[in-house]
């Protein structure tokens, strides 16, 4: 049987990539003295990767817009902080319980999704974000109100995760796990059902897919990923407040998924890395360089760059970074025989 020549996935480089992820901090440490700063940025990216992978399952695969994922992250972070610090559950148990609690929240938020879709669903989930913020302030005995909450360090089977170095390995172990699980989900019956709901509800129903059940399930799974990210967020940042989880963060999550390429797990990962590194590393570096020549207001410039990136991606590269990578791969694979027009 003739297999597809270049459309099936090449899995050989994945173990290499995983090893590279684990070697990266050692490389960074030897390369620069300020490695902790860079590691911290990668840690943020790692936590967000877990969330955006879940968001991609919801928005990219099932086609349900969510502007409330910062709120899911907040619920996860606060739930874990309360479970571990105030109720006294071990961190390992919180890692299991919190995602389930946040998943159930997602399940509840999923109810409107049965009736509304698109931008309206986005607005509904956004409203959910505001409600969560109010609730966090209202339950001030537990959450510390608007003043924020200090969170203990994570203890993993007797080993305390102390600093950014330890955080990196913990976060990326879970991030890799999350990516693998997400890939398994979208490549199975579940993922096929989600994509069918996105592209053709009729075909989905004719194939025996219960729309309501699978939409809710998508919200539940996405919520679980967000909850998991929330646990890691709380216990690696050591301080959480309502200012962490504002509406802008939800929009950033959507941007990450969009830039990476809607509907591909690796795309969400790439998009998250791209945006987080861009925002925290490259734009500040660029600004530092630019400010020697022209006077710049730091933040304004950042917003401008982001707008530009979004615009360029939507116009020229709607399949995102991952789509770009796939095209490049094909280009090099058949390199001497590249009819140029194929890839435009």
């Amino acid at each position: 049987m003739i297999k597809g020549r270049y459309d099936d996935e090449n899995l050989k480089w994945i173990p290499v990539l995983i090893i590279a992820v684990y070697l990266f901090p050692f490389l960074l440490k030897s390369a620069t003295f300020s490695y902790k700063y860079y590691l911290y940025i990668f840690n943020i990216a790692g936590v967000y990767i877990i969330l955006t992978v879940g968001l991609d399952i919801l928005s990219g695969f099932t086609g349900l817009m969510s502007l409330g994922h910062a709120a899911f992250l907040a619920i996860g972070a606060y739930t874990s902080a309360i479970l571990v610090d105030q109720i006294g559950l071990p961190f390992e148990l919180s890692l299991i319980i919190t995602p389930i609690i946040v998943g159930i929240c997602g399940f509840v938020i999923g109810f409107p999704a049965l009736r509304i879709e698109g931008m309206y669903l986005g607005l509904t989930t956004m409203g959910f974000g505001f409600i969560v913020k109010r609730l966090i302030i209202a339950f001030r005995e537990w959450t510390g109100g608007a003043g924020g909450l200090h969170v203990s360090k994570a203890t993993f089977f007797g080993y305390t995760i102390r600093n950014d170095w330890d955080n990196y390995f913990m976060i990326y172990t879970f991030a890799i796990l999350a990516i693998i699980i997400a890939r398994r989900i979208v490549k199975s019956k579940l993922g096929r059902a989600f994509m069918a709901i996105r592209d053709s509800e009729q075909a989905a129903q004719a194939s025996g897919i219960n729309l309501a059940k699978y939409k809710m399930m998508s919200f539940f799974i996405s919520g679980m990923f967000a909850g998991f990210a929330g646990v890691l967020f709380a216990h690696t940042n050591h301080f959480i407040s309502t200012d962490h989880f504002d509406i802008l963060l939800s929009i950033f999550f959507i941007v990450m998924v969009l830039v990476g390429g809607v509907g591909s797990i690796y795309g969400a990962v790439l998009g998250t890395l791209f945006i987080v590194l861009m925002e925290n590393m490259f734009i500040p570096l660029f600004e530092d360089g630019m400010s020697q020549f022209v006077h710049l207001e730091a933040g304004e410039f950042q917003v401008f760059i982001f707008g530009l990136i979004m615009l360029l991606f939507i116009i020229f590269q709607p399949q995102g970074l991952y789509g770009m990578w796939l095209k490049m791969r094909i280009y090099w694979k058949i390199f001497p025989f590249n009819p140029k027009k194929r890839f435009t």
Partner: protein
Amino acid sequence: MKKMTVMISILLLFIACGKQAPTPGVTDTEILIGNIQDLSGPMKELGAVLPAGSNLYFQYINEQGGVHGRQIKMIVEDHQYNPQKAVVAAKKLIEKDQVFCLYHVIGTSTCEAIRPILAETKTPLIAPATQSGTMSDLSRTAGDLIFHTDTGYDKQTNILIDYILNNDSNAKIGLIYQDDDYGENVLKGAGEAESRHSISVQKEAFQRGATDFTGQVGNLIKGSATHVIIAGVVKEPIIVMKTASAMGFSPQFFGTSPTMDHRVALAAGPAGEGFIAANFADLWNSDASEAVHYRELCDKYEVPEAYMGMYHFYGYITAKVLVEGLERAGKNPTRNRLINGMETLKKWDSGAFPPITYNSNDHAGTESVILVQIKDGVQTVITDWID
């Protein structure tokens, strides 16, 4: 196999290039200081003015020859009032730019967020630009590294309630507070005062950014409050007082330090007459010794008119505290010596702040305020430092 060799050699190259740590932020000619401001977030108006005020004083000191022959250089980072970004900025300043200490970081939640890094790297934070009373709490993470200069909101509220009850023991006090970390702190102070005087304060909350206060004012009228404390920023006292005057309600209004802004007097008009605000420093246009000096320097360095004012002066005066600490840290400053130097301040008069005292058990600095009343549309100081 060939690839492997290449990779290993690259790895070795990186290891060989590894740099050594210098003494952070201090060279023979320069002291590097990190500042994190909100340059593009909700409070970006302050983000431009505060560091400009600090730089005015540094410029003056540098022209005098600097601190022990070292010029002071300040790097300003942006956190957009987002705690996450504040952490990134602090890591950048401490790990990458290798600053000697942090100074004047604005915002309560942002300062709270960077506590773990301060503790981890033992970096002092001098004069955080927040009036949260929990900032100087030594029992918290990195409490020993933070030197607070402003009187906390809880203390301010306490002082205001004391002042009200001293003047009128039958006063019924109402409180309008913002529903965030700021209001949280005000509530704490009010709670303390309530139990101390065994009174009850009528508390009305509003959301950050609210523009309609008829509900709150209506409730205060129902509760027949005679004295009302407004814990807002600039807009809120103006709207509250105008609403109250429109509704025929005229209690004595008080405000916490953020309401002590000349714009309140300008915009509130007759409704704002008699409004009393607490402040943790002298007015920039007063006769206090440093305020006079400040105006001289503003003339000398041609500071734009738009910058001059309360916040510019605030940046300026905290810079003076920092420089005093650096002076006391000695000729070869280390972070520990800076902390020890700061802790030798005993009733030190900055010329604008109330006398500042630090020791190893107390990093609050000051616990007093002056009260400023609007008389005939002009802000006038009506008390000495009270606590």
